[in-house]
């Protein structure tokens, strides 16, 4: 176990390092922040002067080594656009992103468990079909259009909920529903398939043979076992929710990390991009590690 954890942590560090290095060279090679910083009527001399001041005229590997050296000490440099440390700009947005990701995650898993269990319990075929159809229809909708649809219905039409920004719980409802319901169909299918597999297991037959009721068998015996594959997928999805909520953050003008990174890419604000990518890859890797460890909790047979 200890060996496994140590190995995974070392792997994780290597992964994060690789991601940051790739990100560094990709953004450097794709554009020049000095030109985007200046007004359109800047002269060639203005450009040369600002490039010099920003240290962009030095060879890229020198810049890279310097960056790695500083990053190892926790210094990701100052934002080019905003005169403050890049990492603190990213960290400022983390609460907003966490809030949205965790709520969406809870919405997605919660809905999947409730609806999935209903589908298993009910004997009405039409209800089962209806739930699956709704979930599939939802997933067929791109996040952007679904978000707009939610805004048109709940903000413009009914006037119940705000369509932009962050603040009260009301602000959270539409983005969390939009983001959280996206993976619903996937969770449902997975959950159903895994319940169906459990159903054929010996221990289920034994439970029935002991005279236990259908609901008791489902809730007490099958459900905990059926959760395993969901945990795997959900863990990866949580990572995606943290970093991949860009579209949702854009539709609902949510001030999260994803939007900051996209904005920084369009301004070639290197330090902020890299700080953001570093943080997100770190979170992703850590979540994966936790998922692996959760496995052994949920299924004592899994040993490393």
């Amino acid at each position, binding site marked *: 176990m200890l060996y496994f954890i140590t190995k995974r942590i070392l792997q994780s560090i290597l992964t994060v390092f690789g991601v940051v290095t790739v990100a560094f060279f990709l953004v450097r090679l*794709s*554009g*020049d922040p000095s*030109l*985007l*910083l*200046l*007004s*359109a*009527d*800047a*002269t*060639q*001399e*203005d*450009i040369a*002067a*600002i490039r*010099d*001041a*920003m240290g962009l005229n030095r060879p890229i590997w020198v810049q890279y080594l310097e960056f790695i050296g500083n990053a190892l000490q926790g210094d990701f440099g100052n934002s080019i*656009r*905003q*005169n*403050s440390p890049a990492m603190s*700009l990213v960290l*400022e*947005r983390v609460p907003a992103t966490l809030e949205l990701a965790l709520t969406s995650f809870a919405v997605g898993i919660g809905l999947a468990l409730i609806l999935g269990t209903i589908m298993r319990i009910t004997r009405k075929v039409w209800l089962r079909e209806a739930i699956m159809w709704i979930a599939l229809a939802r997933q067929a909708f791109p996040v*952007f259009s679904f978000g*707009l649809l939610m*805004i*048109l219905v709940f*903000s*413009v039409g009914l*006037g119940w909920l*705000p*369509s*932009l*920004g*962050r603040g009260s719980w009301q602000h959270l409802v539409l983005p969390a529903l939009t983001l959280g319901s996206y993976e619903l169909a996937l969770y449902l299918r997975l959950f159903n398939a895994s319940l169906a597999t459990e159903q054929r297991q010996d221990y289920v037959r034994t439970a029935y043979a002991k005279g236990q009721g259908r609901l008791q068998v489902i809730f007490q015996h099958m459900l905990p076992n059926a959760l395993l594959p969901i945990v795997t997928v959900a863990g990866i999805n949580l990572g995606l929710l943290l970093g991949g909520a860009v579209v949702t953050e*854009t*539709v*609902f*003008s949510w*001030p*999260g990390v994803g*939007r*900051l990174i996209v*904005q920084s*890419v*369009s*301004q*070639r604000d290197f330090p902020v991009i890299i700080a953001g990518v570093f943080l997100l890859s770190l979170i992703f890797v850590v979540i994966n590690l936790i998922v692996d460890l959760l496995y052994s909790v949920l299924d004592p047979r899994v040993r490393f």
Partner: protein
Amino acid sequence: MFMHRLRQGAAALAIATGLLVPAHQVFAAPETLTIALPGDFPSLVPSDDTSPLGFNYRLNVFDQLTVIGKDGKIGPRLATEWTASDDLLKWTFKLRTDALFHDGSPVTAHDVEFTARYILDNPKSPTRTFLRLVDSVKAIDDHTIEFTLNQPYSIFERQISFINVMPKDYHTKVGEEGYAKAPIGSGPYKVVNWVKDDRLELEAFDKYWGGAPEVKKAVFRPIPAEASRATALMSGEVDLVTTLPPALVDTLARNDGIEVKTVPGSRVMFLGFNSNAAPLDNPKIREAIDIAIDREAITQGLLRGLGRATGMMIPPNNVGYNPEFVATKQDMARAKQLVAESGYAGEPILFDYPSNNFVLANEIAQAIAGYLTEAGLKVELRPAEFTAFFPQWTQTAFPSLYMFAYGSTQYHADTILTSMYSTGGRVYRLNPEIDALVAEQKRERDPVKQAEIISRIFKIGAEDRDNVPLYDEFFAVGMKKDLGYEAWPDGFVRLYEFR
């Protein structure tokens, strides 16, 4: 609806006849105004930011020495009067004595000197571009400031309007980081709260020298998605959206509580040629491209009126505009003939253009490529994201044909002539005659003579066809009914105009 059409018709008529909206329009002022912008401000430190978006902030929170009016004329702001020496090297500004910073301290020439020096001493400040001609700056007394330039510049009074005066004592006391967190200026609005990517809240500064503004509270909300800006207006969460895509104009205009206005902008969309490289080094091919394009079809059909075909690289509201430059009419037969005569061998013409930041950029580039193909030219479309496109433009790196829109924030032809016609700008084929004329108009103090020189340069440019103007950009503004807001050509919101 009828009234709306009528108003739009009247606006179109006013534009067509060359009339401009009155400089100081009177609006009914709401207590709080919420404005949707496409993004957040990069920084609240005025010397760190030259972005067009940032003008919405800087014009309201800071004072500048001078101000350019809606009609393009230069007027006083912090400076009440100013003079230039005969050689146009020494510029002396007299400051008003009743201006206060938001912390209550008076605005003096020392603050202006501090601001200019702070920018000049900071090689990372992008605003140095606006002071690049300044050799030295000196406060003569508390209310007189003198700039010495390193070359004559007749419209320095316009360039200085981009410098936002910062308070020396406060800035020195709180330091750079402190100032970035709590910036103060002497403008009509104070910063109250900034939640990045969510909102910037401003509050009227009651002791503003120009009188307390009527709109007491203003909120700028960054809303990156076009469609979300429209829905925010529909749901009533914002009062004003400064740019609407043409596709949503009709939908929004049908909405009862919303008014949509079409406003002439400050940029001209044009085609640029790398005239050094084949095949565009051939003047016949450049002419063929010019006359193959149906500008009316683009502005009316594609842009639905959000553009006006033009024959000049500056819009009508700029100093130096001359209505004698008319838009090229399409003549496809002649275009085909020119291509045939040119000895064009079918080598592909690479057509670079920015796929975002411009209304319907892709559609327009495709339409142009269609015309050129019809004329017998082979065109390869090369869309690029704006941030990838723009540096190529600044560095004159396009291999043959490109499309771009550019406008002068100084509302003056000089900006365009300096950055797109003379050596040192985005010029592919240098022309010493134009260089000399551009320098001459910079020195010319008489506006009539200056306008003559400007027209001469544009005339040479039109004959050379290194750039071919297509249309003046218009933009659509959406607002709550009865707000009565009249947008500026630059699209920046001056909150203090609501009276």
